[in-house]
């Protein structure tokens, strides 16, 4: 009764504000969606943690026949590909943003930014097709000829094909770049002109000025990369097409094929229901992916608050 009255009071507190409060239904819907999905994930996923315990994430095994599931290899693959992808994307996105804002004349600037934004609008399936037919053969050629092939004993198995953790990393980085470029570009453009003037008036070269400006916006750059990675980490179809899809316990051997969590899900969901614990394992993986994403978001909100 008290709660009802409280609700009533908040509803009619101010003139016509109840309409505004009705908007909260939308927020409730979103919270409901996330909670529902997480309940489904957790409800199923918990079963695999009960069965496998911690070894679900500390061992490498994936066998429906034996009903044994350990996703260390996929977890490792996710982190390794993600790390390399971020590193490459950082270079490319910073380069693009600097080129667009600092080098290109203003008429080309609009065109170039549109172009990078456009690449964010391309469906990921099409990236996957391209990665499979164009990118991985090229990577395969690169890693089987010197100087890269000299690293093969440490990073791969002999005769590696193009479909590998490395190809997946590079494809991911290509998909991340447009997002990161857009964010870095905007923060670079948002640096007030008087900062430029101050730096140039000290007699610095363009490159030095740019480097100082980049350092100035380093939290934005980090945020941009993390957010874009978050968007790519759940990418299933495109990655599944180029990563080689092999249970590779040595996930640091990036010239070899491997798995990411998302591509393992994409590969296994079709027949998962034929086994007792494969569906829980898949949902358990999704839960882990969600936690990684949540972690990234919390981290980003912390660093951006500090910056």
């Amino acid at each position, binding site marked *: 009764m008290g709660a009802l009255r409280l609700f009533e009071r908040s509803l009619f507190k101010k003139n016509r504000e109840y309409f505004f409060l009705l908007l909260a239904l939308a927020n409730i819907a979103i919270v409901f969606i996330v909670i529902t999905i997480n309940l489904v994930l957790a409800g199923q996923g918990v079963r695999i943690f009960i069965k496998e315990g911690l070894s679900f994430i500390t061992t490498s095994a994936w066998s429906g026949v034996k009903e044994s599931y350990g996703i260390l290899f996929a977890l490792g693959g996710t982190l390794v590909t993600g790390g390399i992808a971020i590193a490459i994307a950082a270079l490319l996105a910073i380069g693009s943003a600097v080129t667009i804002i600092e080098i290109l004349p203003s008429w080309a600037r609009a065109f170039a930014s549109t172009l990078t934004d456009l690449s964010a609008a391309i469906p990921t399936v099409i990236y996957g097709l391209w990665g499979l037919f164009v990118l991985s053969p090229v990577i395969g050629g690169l890693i089987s000829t010197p100087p890269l092939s000299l690293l093969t004993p440490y990073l791969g198995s002999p005769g590696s094909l193009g*479909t590998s953790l490395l190809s997946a990393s590079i494809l991911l980085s290509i998909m991340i770049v447009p997002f990161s470029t857009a964010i870095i570009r905007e923060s670079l453009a948002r640096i007030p002109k008087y900062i430029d003037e101050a730096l140039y008036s000290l007699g610095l070269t363009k490159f030095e000025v740019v480097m100082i400006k980049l350092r100035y916006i380093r939290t934005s750059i980090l945020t941009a990369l993390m957010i874009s990675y978050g968007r790519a980490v759940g990418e299933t179809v495109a990655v599944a097409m180029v990563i080689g899809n092999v249970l590779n316990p040595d996930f640091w051997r990036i010239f070899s094929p491997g798995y990411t969590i998302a591509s393992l899900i994409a590969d296994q969901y079709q027949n998962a229901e034929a086994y007792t614990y494969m569906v829980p394992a898949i949902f358990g993986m999704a839960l882990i992916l969600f936690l990684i994403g949540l972690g990234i978001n919390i981290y980003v909100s912390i660093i951006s608050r500090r910056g």
Partner: protein
Amino acid sequence: MLKKIIPIGILIAIIIIGAVALFMYKPWGGVGVPTQPTDTRNTAVTATATTTTSSGMIVLTFTYEDLSVKAEIPRKEVLITGGGSTFVNPQMQAWAQKFRSVSGGYVTVNYQSIGSGAGEAKWFDKALDFGASDVPISKTTYDRLISRKASFIQIPLIAGAVGIIYNIPEWDESKCGPLRLSGDVIADIYLGKILYWDDDRIKMQQVEECRSLLPHEIIRGIHRSDGSGTTALFTLYLSTVSSEWKTRVGTGYTVEWPRDAMGYGEGARGNEGVSAKVKGTKYSIGYVEYSYAVANKIPMAALKNKDGFYIVPSAEAVMEALKRGAKDLPPPSSFWGDVPATLINREGEKTYPIVGMVYAFIYTDIVSDIVSNKDLAAALSAFFKWVLTEGQKPENIVTGYVPLPKELAAKAIKYIEDYLKY
């Protein structure tokens, strides 16, 4: 106060009316709102005899060799939703398209290749009107069906095989013919026990003048990475011929490949992934569906069968296995788990050893949504009768699929007639 309540009242009213309208309207279960098809579509009926019963059904007769079956098609637009096996998808699409014109445009079969495992599970969930799978109903699902007291049938639809493909640049096919392999050798290759192509056990199987062509190169073992019925059939074969395989790896949609762990194996998505990877990787070996290899004209290895003959897959060689294996089907609602093994590694001079069938699952009890809908049940019955008769004729078979022997088709039709009542 009243002024404030009115807008909220109106909103809530709209929501309630909308919700009620949605609840009243219940067109699912795969059946569309009946609409009267145009007369031009009626004339498209192509089957041999057309009569109309008192209940308004179109009666058609289908034949296959000396089989002749009557089927009734409702005079209403009916949508059948099926899903499962990826292997049968191209064939099913062809059947669906042809059957729609056979039914005079009344019956549309929407089949989606969501995977055998998912097909079985979603059928069990009653989200599908029928499920199709490369293996019969699994033990778990079967037990759940029994405990639920559900009645259902499973019937074979069509057959296929798994072919072994390879890439050895030195191998001269025009001179030596297809590579010859035995099951235990293939198992040991994938187990990682045979490393090189010039291993004696491979060499000795080839004709003498070609033995020296096999290079001292590491064999790359390619396999399906996605869960698939093809892998299930292939590993079933390996388990049959190699006890070590059976204990170390086993049979399933996805298994752990010992050769991968050694760094000499790799997975690929789908048949085309495997075939592309084998094509692109020197000294590799892989397996694909027979129909896929035929459609894409990929040469396959000759496999040693139980009687020691080396057989290249072909429609006849598969048919031989079918005739020997599934002579008699178990009762429709019993556990069929042993049926696939009866087709594997059969004896005979021309019998190919890795052969399997696609099975369809249909509920037959009145309680289920499907059968409470008379039109849907009739359409399902007619569709599968057509598939098992006209559908097995060469003009309706997609290249690379193997029709069922007449005896098997007749048995399956009998199950439909006996159990799928409407």
